[in-house]
């Protein structure tokens, strides 16, 4: 229960940050994608199930406040969370290389999927300028923010896991 509340608060907090604070801290109109950071880090920290659920809710929030159709971002982020969950087996909290790599790859995938489904299908074929203008800057900014946000998410998760272990022991 505590985990659910804290996760919900974390998602809301990141969404507010993304749409207000980072909008005034943007570089050339580009903002980092905190939703991808959250989704993929919970994916590889907690497994497929939690990854896809958190992705779904992060995406739904984006859909309601900025999407054109309900369910688009929810679906993209859900699959990202699910795929990141596949790496749960080889994830160790001490290692920072895998999380960083996964978050960058996730953000790239997110950008490319968005480009293909929202722009390419409408006949905007200038792929390279979209990569150079939007996807790449977003990935770089996201990775910079990851260095700050990821340790916090990791700490929160470790605390929660320790707490869950303790309460499990009490009942045994």
């Amino acid at each position, binding site marked *: 229960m505590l985990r659910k509340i804290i996760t919900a608060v974390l998602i*809301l907090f990141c969404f*507010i940050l993304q749409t207000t604070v980072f909008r005034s801290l943007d570089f*050339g*109109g580009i903002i980092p994608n905190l939703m991808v950071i959250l989704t993929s880090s919970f994916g590889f920290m907690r497994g497929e199930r939690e990854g*896809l659920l958190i992705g779904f809710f992060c995406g739904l929030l984006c859909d309601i*406040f*900025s999407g054109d159709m309900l*369910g688009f971002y929810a679906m993209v982020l859900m699959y990202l969370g699910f795929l990141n969950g596949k790496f749960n087996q080889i994830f160790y909290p001490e290692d920072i290389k895998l999380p960083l790599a996964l978050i960058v790859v996730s953000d790239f995938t997110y950008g490319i999927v968005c480009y293909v489904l929202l*722009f390419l299908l409408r006949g905007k074929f200038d792929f390279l300028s979209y990569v150079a203008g939007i996807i790449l800057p977003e990935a770089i900014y996201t990775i910079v923010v990851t260095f700050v946000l990821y340790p916090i998410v990791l700490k929160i998760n470790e605390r929660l896991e320790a707490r869950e272990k303790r309460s499990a022991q009490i009942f045994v």
Partner: protein
Amino acid sequence: MSPIIKRKGERFTLPSKYLLFILTVLCSVAMLLTFGTDLFNGPFNTVAGYVVLPFQEGISEAGSWLANRSEELVQIRQLLEENERLQEQVAKLTSENTILQQERYELTRLQELMELKEKYSQYDTVGARIISRDSSNWYSNFTVNKGYEDGIAADMNVMADGGLVGRVTSVGPNWAKVTAIISDNSNVSGAVMPSGVTLMVSGDLMLMRDGVIRFGQLLDSENEVEPGGKVVTSSISDKYLSDILIGYIDSVTLDANNLTKSGTITPVVDFEHLEEVLIITQLKQSVNEEDALD
């Protein structure tokens, strides 16, 4: 044991594969339902509104609180200086104002006489504050702090700096989502002012950072349209009220088909530093299919 339901102690949990499948179907249905229809603005929005209502209110509150705080910190020093300056100005302006009011009274009287009332002053507007921007880098939508409780409805036009900003695409109880005309999924039917030839103004993500918007489908066989021409919303648009200023033509080129022209427009609105907007509470009059059936 059933393959779908896995037993874990006393709790039943759905394997993530099936959960993924179910949610995918759910998303697809939602996308199909909301794509191109107004379902999201209609009955579906009330359902979604009740589900996310606590979230919305929290975000709007916290969002505007955060925005206010960060602004306050920057502005306190400026405000102190400004205040002193403004106090002097107030005194000066009050005296000026009385003279102007007299003049304005005379002007309105004369305008009524001439039946030449200015277009914009006919529209009733509501001021609103931008509380959050688009969460993605792909579109230019933003959320404002007025919703249907303040009389805002979908398709209402939004203005700022005397020019067109966009239109309301969906409303909640205390928020409304505005799609800007520079957004890549936005199209506005416009007209070049003196000649009245129509064109299509469409947002473009790649041109957005140069501060211009694209236009196309301009039929101008007599070469009347030149850079600097004034572009306003045309009267044939079914969402936008007519004669709202969009911007000025920046460049014109002939298309490959030798018939139409396209080019770029510099908008009058500074989208980068937009803070407050005016929402016109009057909707474009259109033939409503439901009304026609009744």
